[in-house]
């Protein structure tokens, strides 16, 4: 078992029993579901919209080479510097070098999961720069020295009291339970940082090939300030963020808002087309767009799971996932949690180390049903399981399935098996729940269904005989 897997099991053991956590997440996500359903009904036909979105992403991902070049060419034509990075190392080095070249000291950053993916903050801090997250949720988890809990709601595991305590400790503010006041405390601390910052770093929600623009979606206006105030702007994005046309946003912006947060459209949607152009009075003087592959092209080469590159990181699959809702975001131990994380992490970070994420699912399919771009998420979990077992079978498990098959295909032996189970069942109570109990994983919390005195097939033989006799 990989160390990642052991850690997952240990954390799951603790957090699944944490009823405060369970209550908090269930309540928050039930509210989300209500809001989402209300917004969904504003779409003339949600299912057709999903289909249209899936087809658009299908086109974008299947012709990624063409659209990425188009995107980069258009950006460069307006003076943006485009950097192509295969690995997280390359992306970090390039970004750190840009900041160093500018002799910058303070960096302001808006929310970007791709930056989490490559641990960018740690690299920038190691290089001696001060980095401040400007999204409120991200700022909170940064103060707590924690990774984001959820790809859209980074601090959803915290209550107002938790946040108030944190601000008192870290910012010396007065205690308060009012969300507005808490926001104002953060705002006062952050405003200073925008002014001080020499470099602003953003992510991107969409990259429009047709016009060479990035589209940023946010609710706080912080990404706008991050992009507008510092002289240098850096945007880091995964290569899968491409949309072919500007008009695609007409579907994708409301879809992202609805699926992600139960909003009609997100508060602020901004398009960025380049650095300050001659004759313009504001905007960053330099803009660097860093395109990250990090195994995405390997995923692209896999016809079975290529559609996982359609992901628009709306977080809807996390929100409906009963596993996520019970273990929470941190237990996954990796940047992308929930169903999409369980699908792609084994590809991004190694199948054998991360296959447990694909196994820790009841395969209920709620994720696939909800995904706005129709990624076949839960079936991909099955494929990951298959690939992992083929590559490195677990000897015990494999032998057990072989033995099971051997017995199941021999009715005589199957019958003997049933009789043995019936015979030994009364003895089970002597070891029930102890270390000797072979069914301990089950019996620790659940009673066992007794083997029936007469199985269906035994009954059937009698029934058949009676019918024939008639």
């Amino acid at each position, binding site marked *: 078992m990989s160390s990642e897997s052991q850690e997952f099991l240990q954390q799951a053991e603790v957090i699944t029993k944490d009823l405060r956590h369970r209550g908090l997440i269930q309540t928050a996500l039930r509210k989300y579901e209500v809001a989402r359903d209300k917004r969904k009904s504003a779409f003339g036909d949600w299912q057709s919209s999903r289909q249209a979105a899936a087809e658009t992403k299908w086109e974008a991902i299947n012709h990624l080479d063409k659209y990425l070049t188009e995107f980069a060419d258009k950006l460069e034509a307006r003076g943006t510097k485009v950097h192509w990075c295969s690995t997280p190392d390359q992306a970090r080095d390039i970004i750190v070098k840009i900041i160093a070249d500018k002799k910058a000291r303070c960096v302001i950053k808006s929310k970007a999961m791709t930056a989490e993916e490559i641990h960018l903050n740690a690299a920038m801090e190691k290089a001696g720069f001060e980095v401040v997250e400007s999204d409120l949720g991200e700022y909170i988890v940064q103060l707590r020295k924690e990774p984001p809990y959820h790809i859209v709601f980074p601090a959803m595991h915290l209550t107002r009291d938790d946040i108030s305590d944190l601000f008192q400790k870290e910012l010396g503010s007065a205690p308060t339970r009012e969300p507005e006041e808490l926001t104002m405390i953060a705002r006062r601390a952050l405003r200073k940082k925008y002014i001080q910052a020499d470099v602003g770093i953003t992510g991107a929600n969409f990259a429009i090939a047709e016009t060479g623009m990035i589209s940023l979606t946010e609710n706080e206006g912080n990404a706008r300030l991050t992009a507008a105030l510092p002289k240098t702007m850096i945007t880091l994005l995964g290569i899968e963020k491409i949309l072919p046309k500007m008009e695609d946003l007409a579907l994708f912006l409301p879809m992202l808002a609805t699926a992600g947060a139960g909003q009609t459209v997100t508060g602020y949607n901004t398009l960025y087309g380049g650095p300050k152009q001659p004759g313009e009075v504001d905007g960053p003087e330099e803009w660097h767009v860093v395109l990250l592959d990090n195994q995405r092209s390997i995923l692209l080469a896999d016809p079975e799971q290529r559609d996982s590159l359609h992901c628009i990181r709306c977080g809807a699959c996390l929100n409906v996932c009963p596993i996520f809702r019970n273990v929470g975001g941190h237990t996954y131990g990796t940047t992308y949690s929930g169903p999409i994380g369980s699908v792609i992490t084994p590809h991004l970070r190694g199948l054998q180390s991360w296959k447990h994420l694909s196994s820790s699912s009841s395969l209920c399919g709620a994720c696939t049903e909800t995904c706005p771009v129709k990624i076949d998420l839960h079936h991909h979990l099955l494929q990951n399981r298959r690939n992992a077992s083929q590559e490195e079978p677990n000897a015990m498990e494999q032998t057990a399935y072989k033995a099971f098959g051997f017995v*199941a295909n021999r*009715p005589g032996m199957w019958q003997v098996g049933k009789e043995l189970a019936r015979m030994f069942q009364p003895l089970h109570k002597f070891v029930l729940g102890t270390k000797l109990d072979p069914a301990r994983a089950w019996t620790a919390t659940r009673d066992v269904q007794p083997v029936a005195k007469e199985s269906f097939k035994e009954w059937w033989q009698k029934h058949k005989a009676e019918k024939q006799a008639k």
Partner: protein
Amino acid sequence: MTVTLFVPCFVDALFPQVGINMVHILEKLGHRVECPEEIACCGQPAFNSGYWDEARCVAEPVLKRLKDSEAVVIASGSCGAMLKVFYPQLFADKPEAHAAHELSGKVWEFSDFLVKKLGVTDLGAKFPAKVTFHDGCHGLRELGIKSSPRKLLEKVQGLELIEMQDAETCCGFGGTFAAKFPMISTAMGEVKCASAKDTGADYIVSNDSSCLMHVQGLLSREGHKLKTLHLAEILGNQ
């Protein structure tokens, strides 16, 4: 019509009354029922764990045995999904691909078979109690079964159906998942049980005994009076 009733391994050994009720119901409707005694399991445990060769080993005899059936009815939504949806994937580039595809077309989950294929909803059943219905995930999302069991329950005399919040949320069974990740499975089950208890129902009914085995296991351990029943047991109550 001759109906081939496939009673999966765990229903055979642990919940025989589910299969027995199905036989009675189908025979009462005038159909000839046959049960393939030589096949035990659909191969889903191995398939779900990623051991597809081992799953095929169990699935091949099933394919062969059910090849000439007129209609195959399965006493579990989950095993039904295995035959209908996953066999074609399991055998995708194997010589049995065609057979798997053919079989898929004639496989039915029990409640869907009654309502959609036979067009019956009223079986003359009586069951004076309050029940809530749990949608098993495989039946719901792989087979798209939502209305059939409810249509059948509606016609049961004396029965009051109270929908629980999040009826479509997984109960946490998930086959081998329940044993590999018992803590998550249990937490999910507890959430499910809480929703069911909130309805004030006397019974949790489902068309999948596997979910019920897990839910009943939790309820019994807790000593709660809420009981689980398979839909067929209610429909068979005349």
